[in-house]
């Protein structure tokens, strides 16, 4: 039995973490064994899932609190990039001694926590680990809120590029060593410049790391290939989470384009925090006539102006959003499913609030033919 992978992506601030959690709950209540992996370091998911603290290992979400007859299960975890990186090194190292040498390298200790893209890459690595070893039917991944929403897709390739021995060879080679070829003259100069800027000590540590890393190279690229295969698997679904705000949609369209370019399986849009239009508009006469005797006409005029404004503003917001939603619909694939999650009246606090979003989310995102609720 292989797990299906659902990846929730989108720009920061659209409620990706909330949607990921709500979707995971919904799928668990359908009877699936679900895992949700969040990258969000703000620990807010733990609060609303009611499991105290999230970590790199799975914690069982007490779904019975909201659904006593729930037949599925939900495990939640939050990525610990450093711990995942350490695990990866141990997994692919040819010997425990080789692993320990790398883990003790000063450059590695910086890089595993601070390296651009390492967080994103480890999200992919953790996903693969869960997919290979976890007892799950579905894994929902909440993607990192990176500057560039798609960095995580390129992360395995970028890391592979980094560890490409050709790239670092010039730093590893002592400057006195001969054999520079004319074509590579540029690299020699680069190496010299970098050595001058960074200082020999730092370069030495980086070089040592890449020397040690040579032995891990095969295992590392193998994992990278598997991650890419998993992302591109026809059973995987990328859900584009966005909000009716304009900027978020510009990013969503960009995101869609990248999925298309990379041939990744698009599962549909989830529009979060959609404002429903008011059903009707109060007549000024009717408002005026409703005045109770205890409130003066002047004060009543103040109050009813505010009441009318509450309706008008909501209508205007809903209309603006509908126009943007129509634009998004027209820009996506013709049959792209679209799920609209209404704006909650209050902050989402707990499991029950998250579970309440379930009906607005797909029951099984991999059924491409399933029509979205309208």
């Amino acid at each position: 039995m292989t797990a299906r992978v659902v990846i929730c992506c989108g720009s920061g601030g659209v409620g990706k973490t909330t949607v990921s959690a709500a979707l995971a709950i919904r799928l668990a209540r359908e009877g699936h064994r679900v895992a949700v992996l969040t990258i969000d370091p703000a620990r807010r998911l733990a609060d609303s899932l009611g499991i105290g603290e999230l970590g790199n290992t799975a914690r069982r979400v007490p779904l019975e609190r909201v659904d006593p007859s729930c037949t599925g299960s939900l495990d939640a975890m939050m990525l610990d990039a450093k711990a995942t990186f350490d695990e990866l090194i141990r997994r692919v190292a040819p010997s425990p001694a080789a692993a320990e040498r790398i883990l003790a390298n000063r450059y590695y200790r910086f890089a595993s926590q601070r390296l651009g893209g390492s967080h994103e890459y480890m999200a992919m690595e953790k996903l693969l680990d869960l997919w290979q070893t976890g007892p799950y039917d579905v894994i929902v991944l909440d993607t990192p809120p990176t500057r560039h929403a798609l960095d995580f897709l390129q992360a395995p390739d970028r890391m592979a590029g980094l560890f490409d021995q050709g790239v670092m060879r010039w730093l590893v080679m002592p400057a006195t060593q001969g054999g520079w070829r004319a074509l590579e003259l540029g690299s020699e100069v680069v190496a010299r410049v970098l050595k001058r800027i960074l200082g020999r000590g730092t370069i030495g540590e980086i070089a040592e790391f890449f020397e040690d890393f040579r032995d891990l190279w095969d295992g590392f690229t193998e994992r990278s290939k598997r991650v890419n295969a998993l992302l591109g698997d026809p059973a995987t679904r990328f859900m584009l989470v966005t909000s009716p705000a304009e900027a978020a949609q510009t990013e969503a369209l960009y995101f869609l384009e990248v999925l298309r370019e990379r041939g990744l399986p698009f599962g549909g849009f989830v529009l979060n925090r959609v404002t429903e239009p008011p059903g009707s508009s109060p007549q000024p006469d009717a408002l005026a006539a409703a005045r109770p005797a205890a409130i003066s006409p002047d004060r009543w005029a103040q109050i009813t102006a505010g009441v009318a404004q509450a309706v008008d503003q909501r209508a205007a917001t809903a209309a603006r959003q509908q126009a943007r939603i129509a634009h998004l619909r027209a820009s996506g694939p013709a049959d792209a499913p679209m799920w609209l999650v209404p704006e909650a009246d209050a902050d989402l606090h707990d499991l029950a609030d998250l579970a309440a979003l379930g009906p607005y989310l797909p029951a099984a995102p991999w059924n491409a033919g399933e029509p979205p609720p309208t």
Partner: protein
Amino acid sequence: MSLGSQRIVIVTGKGGVGKTTVSVALALEAARRGLRTVVAETSGSQRIAPLFGQESRGYDLVQLAPNLHTLSITPLEAMEDYIVQQVKIRRIYEMVFRNRVMGPFVDAVPGLHDAVQLGKVFDLEREQRFGRRRWDLIVVDAPATGHGLSLLSSARTMMDLTRAGPLYEGVKLVHDVVDDPERTGVVLVSLPEEMPVNETAELYQRLGSDSQERVRLIALNQMAAPPFPAGDDWPRAREALLASGDPALTEAASLTDRWLERLDRQDHARDTLLQRIPRPLVELPRCPGGAPDRAALDELGALLGRAMDAA
């Protein structure tokens, strides 16, 4: 203090809270007061120039208004800039830029992205023109919280990593500026909702006591105005609207209720922030049409300017 008493103001907060809006409004106000101001984007999104109907020129400055310029500081361009300063021979630095090793290498040194971006901010701070400093104020539209934090601490990280050498000496100069509360301030942007407020408080805690000192202002964005002047007569008015039996009035009453509940929640959010972050706070009004236009930016700028004067 006044708006321009710190030369560098770094604006950060979680995604979608309005960092760019706050950065631009603050910069506009400074420029209006006659401060030569530059507002720097760091996320690579180049959203600011278009707000003024202009095309972004990336790493090159674009003038937006009198006294106001913008640019987008990307890590790779900042790195090139740095290398040009280090390697004075044109033929050599061109060779370095064109080399395929460069991109992956910049990626491979932890914190280098952030450190060179911060280095560019430092360069702007030092820049001289006509015998005086070119910029009175540099507003940095920093990345969303996680990255915003690493930008703030990147000079320190770089110092720890390199320990000696030219880069160490360079980042130490940068660090001395951004770590000096006289010269650098931080504005944290938040929204009046539970989760953003909690995240802002967490961010503040993670800053550590030294950096907490540099937080000059909390900007609580998108505060809704009340539907009508406050009074204790809403329950009675509501009852009358419901008693009318008119479904339109019933719905209007319930929408008004939601508005009032939102006001309660935002008051609560503000109180939580004040309690958890002992720094000055400014409330910024919600713009009814969604994205703020120029007039709204001016209004937000005036509020921010006054708050910075008092902070």
